[in-house]
């Protein structure tokens, strides 16, 4: 069986995994050979995190067809929960960095999933742009609340306050979350390998979900809500499933992201962050998982590549963004593309062209 004979669905699945694995091997080899600069190798874990975020947001925006502008909120829920879990476990004397990460990631994902579910119940009653604005609002609320959270741990257990660190009433504990200053003293346990594994897990969950009974139901709701209802599909349930799963995956990605730095602040996970993830999804193509992977990786690296022209890099980033969206819709471009296409295809369908002439 040749590659062309496989179902298109299976082909894109294979392609998706292949991209991740090839990228991993390439980066590892290049790194060993010393081709990867310090600043770029510092970006490897964030790239993995953004890939996970883009893939999970694609489940909402591309597969389920709902515009969500609050994905960073769920990322931050995961990140901060993960930091708390890691802080507690370290205090309990857990040594293994891998176990520390796995435990934090699972709890972070669960917390983000639960929040996503709770947010989703009211949100999924709305449609279109109203849904978008409410997800935006929830993202901002989560950020605002986290800005007011003070959490510390000592031998007596976890302490929580919404005023300041002094009101935590701890004798000699560690402060884990310090209001607007965010989480401090995080164990930097995220590595590129862990990142790639998380990417693979995220991709597997999203792809397996997409190509299953539930995934078809989600896509059916996206394509035609009324028709989906008419064949007995519970529309709210499936929109909620997509939203919750995506939130949980964003939570896990948040843990990966947080544990790459020693400090994170709630304001890092603002509206602009959500927009950034949305840009990856739209550029990569709606419902196209490998597209999300490539565009997230590329767009995270792009500002790094533009570092030599530091002052202008965000300006160029903006121009690139506009051009990528606008150019394919310009008449000149469409004409040029048509001309190119006809030139390249001239050799083969000569018969068809003759047939066309005969008809005239």
């Amino acid at each position, binding site marked *: 069986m040749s590659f062309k004979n496989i179902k298109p669905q299976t082909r894109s699945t294979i392609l998706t995994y292949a991209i991740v694995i090839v990228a991993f091997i390439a980066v590892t080899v290049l790194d060993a050979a010393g081709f990867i600069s310090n600043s770029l190798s510092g970006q490897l874990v964030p790239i993995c995190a953004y890939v996970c975020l883009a893939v999970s947001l694609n489940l909402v925006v591309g597969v389920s067809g709902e515009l969500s502008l609050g994905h960073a909120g769920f990322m931050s829920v995961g990140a901060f929960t993960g930091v708390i879990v890691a802080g507690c476990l370290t205090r309990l004397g857990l040594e293994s960095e891998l176990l520390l990460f796995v435990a934090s990631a699972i709890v972070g994902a669960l917390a983000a999933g639960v929040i996503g579910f709770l947010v989703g119940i009211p949100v999924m009653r709305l449609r279109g*742009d*109203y849904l978008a604005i409410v997800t*935006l609002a929830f993202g901002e609320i989560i950020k605002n*609340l986290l800005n*007011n959270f003070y959490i510390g741990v000592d031998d007596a257990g976890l302490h929580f306050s919404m005023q300041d660190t002094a009101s935590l009433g701890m004798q000699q504990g560690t402060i884990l979350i310090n209001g607007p200053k965010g989480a401090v003293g995080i164990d930097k346990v995220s590595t590129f390998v862990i990142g790639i594994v998380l990417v693979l897990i995220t991709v597997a969950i999203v792809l397996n979900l997409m190509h299953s009974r539930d995934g078809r139901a989600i896509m059916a709701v996206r394509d035609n809500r009324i028709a989906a209802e008419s064949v007995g599909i519970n529309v709210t349930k499936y929109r909620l499933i997509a939203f919750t799963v995506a939130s949980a995956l964003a939570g896990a990605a948040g843990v990966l992201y947080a544990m790459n730095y020693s400090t994170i602040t709630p304001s890092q996970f603002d509206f602009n962050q959500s927009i950034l993830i949305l840009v990856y999804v739209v550029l990569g193509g*709606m419902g196209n998982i490998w597209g999300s992977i490539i565009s997230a990786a590329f767009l995270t690296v792009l500002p790094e590549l533009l570092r030599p022209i530091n002052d202008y890099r965000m*300006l160029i980033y*903006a121009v690139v*963004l506009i051009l990528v969206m606008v150019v394919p*819709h310009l008449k000149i471009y469409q004409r040029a593309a048509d001309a190119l296409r006809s030139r390249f295809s001239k050799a083969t369908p000569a018969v068809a062209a003759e047939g066309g002439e005969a008809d005239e």
Partner: protein
Amino acid sequence: MEVLANLINGMSLGSVYAIIALGYTMVYGIAKMLNFAHGDVIMVGAYICFCAVSYLGIPVIAAVLLSIVGCTVLGIVVERLAYKPLREAPSLNVLITAIGVSYFLQNAALIIMGSDPKSFSSIISLPALQLFDGRLTISATAVLTIAACMIIMVALTLFTGKTKMGKAMRACSEDRDAAQLMGINVNSTISMVFAIGSGLAAIAGVLMCAAYPTLMPTTGSMPGIKAFTAAVLGGIGSIPGAALGGVLLGIIEIFARAYIGTQLADAVVFAVLIVMLLIRPAGLLGKNVSEKV
């Protein structure tokens, strides 16, 4: 007295939101797009006014007019270059383009003006009004802002209701194809809406920076989002809705700041929005359009 002072402050802030929200809602009504760059037009307007006064020494009134003209031109140019080619494209592509424009304006301002905040208070300073034997102080800017908002509302209502262009605008938002078949030039109508919206954004920018006198390249983004929220709260696409939503949002925000805490004010604002939308999914004055089966 404190309640009254807060109410007036809230109405003043709300009027700014309302003026911005009008731009959002009109553009949404006609082009069915969320123009995320709208908030940054406010910032551009404020910068133009600031530069005109402090570098060119133009009188304030002239500077405001200049900034209105500047933003109007900016609005039309952005629409022509970035949005017009995407008339038939999926709405998300337009959204991303708008975000690109927003990044562009912010970073262009950053390069030209630098990241240090400019103090706006040096430009407009009017004496405050003292009422009830000095127990209630109302800043002149607040009065000016509320008055400006009311004038704009009346003018816009008259414009959309009475003039030919206003009617063309309403026809386009109702059904663009049908309007075109009736001989309305849809492209120029959309340009006009962008022009009006951007001109209003310039006014909002000047008024906002007169009340909250720090000007940075990112000044426009948060008020932009709030105004967008206000437009949705009032029912996106509805002009009176935008005004109502804006004023309500401003009042809620000021009261939340005063009685709940500055840190949580934004959370309260957004929570109110969510609750409102759950009760009235199309916003306060929005029409609930159901899909035809």
